[in-house]
């Protein structure tokens, strides 16, 4: 489905209330796999090759238009370094979806995926949606983790899988959009089970003329 980000947002985004849903997404993975670059590519469409280690946590806000809904994403970028672990794990609870990232040129980061997934299981809710992303797929020459291996691991863990490159802007947007989609799916699922009548959320209900007034009208 076509997705368009609205360029008018930008700076105003954090204070903008004109959206339907707000999703919180967490990017995790070993240090230097490219989490921050990935986020910057997605949120600002920028890339810097220099490596600056993230201090603790950071986030960016981006509003996207998807499935006829404006969705505000608060994307948390976490520090991969062990010493910040207490801070980063504190954010697992609030996240609806995760991007678990490894570096295809770094075996160790791939081996750590299992541990990261355990972290998610420990600290997050049961329905946490996770995408496994092998970053730096532009560096084919230095690849040490094959696509196949990545795919198998993802299958084993029950995650969806993407190979991406923040540098060459490959699959970055797709990753986030897929994650948003599966969170949406999860959402309507949980609503279905809770209350069979509230399926309207996703189907785009036909409203009668007595419909609830639009939400932006009321202030305060």
């Amino acid at each position, binding site marked *: 489905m076509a997705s368009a980000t609205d360029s008018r947002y930008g700076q105003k985004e954090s204070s903008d209330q004109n959206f339907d*849903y707000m*999703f919180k997404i967490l990017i995790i993975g070993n240090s230097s796999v490219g989490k921050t670059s990935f986020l910057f590519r997605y949120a600002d469409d920028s890339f810097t090759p220099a490596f600056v280690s993230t201090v603790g946590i*950071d986030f960016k806000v981006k509003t996207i238009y998807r499935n006829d809904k404006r969705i505000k994403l608060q994307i948390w970028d976490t520090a991969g370094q062990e010493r910040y672990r207490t801070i980063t794990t504190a954010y697992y609870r609030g996240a*609806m979806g995760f991007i678990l990232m490894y570096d295809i040129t770094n075996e160790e980061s791939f081996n750590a995926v299992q541990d990261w997934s355990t972290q998610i299981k420990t600290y997050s809710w049961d329905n946490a949606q996770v995408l496994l992303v092998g970053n730096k797929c532009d560096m084919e020459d230095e690849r040490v983790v094959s696509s196949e291996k990545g795919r198998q691991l993802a299958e084993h863990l029950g995650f969806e899988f993407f190979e991406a490159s923040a540098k060459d802007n490959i699959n970055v947007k797709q990753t986030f959009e897929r994650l948003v989609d599966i969170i949406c799916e999860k959402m309507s699922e949980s*609503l279905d089970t809770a209350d069979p009548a509230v399926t*309207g959320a996703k189907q785009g209900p036909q409203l009668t003329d007595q419909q*609830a007034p639009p*939400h932006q009208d009321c*202030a*305060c």
Partner: protein
Amino acid sequence: MACEFNLNFLKELEREAVLEVLYRDQMVRKTEEERIRKMKQQLQQLRWKGAKNARHEYQERSCARCQKSLGLLVNRGAVCNGCSHRVCSECRVCLNPCLWKCTICYAHGDVKVKAGEWFFEERAKKYPVYLFICWHNTLIVTLFNKSVENLFLSLTTHIKKISKSQNDMADRCVLTTDYGKNVERRKQRRSQSDTAINVTSRVSILLYTVSSCKSCFRGSLYSLSSTCTESGNFGKANITGEIEFALKYNFRACILEICIKACKNLAYGEEKRKKCNPYVKVYLLPDKSPWSKRKTAVKKSTVDPEFDETLKYKIEHSQLRSRQLQISVWHAGALKYRVFLGEVVIPLAAWNFEEDSMQFDWYPLKPKVIPSFCASLYLKSKMWRKLAPFSGNKDQGVLNCQLQVMIFGAKNLPMLRSAGMVNSFVKGCLILPGQAEVKQKSPVLKKEACPQWKHLFVFDGVTPAQLQQSCLHLTVWHKSIFSSSDQFLGGAKLGAKDQGCQWKFSEKPFVSMVIFMGQSHAKTSTEIVCSNSHRALHIFKDLFL
């Protein structure tokens, strides 16, 4: 599950960076809260519209939403799946050809989705008892005292609204409380059973003050919603109605403009005589000085006044971040008698000033909430090492270490009804490993609501290593003149990891702290709000100095 978390292990710069992120996050949260509040309010208004009340008579068969009478054969209406009320064909929303809901059930579901409640509910399956406040919410909310007010504000208004309106939806009520690190399950359970109110949504509140052991959770809530104890004396009306205004910021001239348009449906300032002469007063908080005050003209004998006035402040845009706009409506009675008719407080940090045109909006007036629950103590502490004359001797070195705690003062101490103003003093008790106690007292300051002791506690002969193992109880007391026993006003416990609040001290410079004190004697819920980072100090100044 309160994340045992502190930023102490970080370096100064790191801490600042993290605080910066937390601050930004706080802004995002505020916006989100605001959005959800708007949605819920809309829903509430929709409910009110359809609410039956005792004053009117209704036909036996009428639509539960629009009160239109229903026929027996034609236009009979049908029963909504969600709420089991009979509604007419116009008050329905079709979800698919064979499924519909009444407007309220639909709006309710919609709000639930948009507010992300599905997520909280799903997550609650994993963490059933505990509430959904991330640790840093605790931290940051404490940092930004004001937002706690907002939380409470929304909670209290929420409860009020709901108790007034018809409860036609039996919603799961989850009213949760957080006692910071001292989660008291018993109280939590109690708070859940205590709420006979159908809270339409998950309301997470953060309680700073554990109300004293005698009064239950409920009592503390009521006392919060009824606090109207600003030093000036004024009358209270039942708060109703709304105010319409727009905000504009002139970037070139650095002027904040508040265009007050009108109010509607105000309460009567003098209910019996049906009199109301309303005017609007604005403060740019935290500044409550006369320089920060702006007023409109007084409109005579109306509850729907039209003001059409623009109030202006010259202020840098960067400064707006830390400000809140307090817009209150008052009744001007004879002989300077004033009656508070409601207020709106807008945190300007989250306000979007970039629009070209002004947007007028209606804002419901709210009762005053005074953060009496946030008693705070501010102090500095440091470890001081005297120059040991016999530096070779180890024991001598130990004796020459001292802990200095400078108590500046306290704010928002609870008012004692009998005494009015408090005669307060601070007790400091350092409990060393091995249960040895060193006690100190500050002098008593008489009749001061915000006492400033500026008193230095010196604890001699404590080593930094010992200090890691010990904890310091700081308690504030009211000195009774007649009765023998002093009254407890609040207290805080600073100490090593598992003993309450982590406590910061450094060798040379004083570390500033603001501490929110619990008011229960046995359990003190304490949060150290600031330590020595710039951001924190900034907040420290903003809030308390």
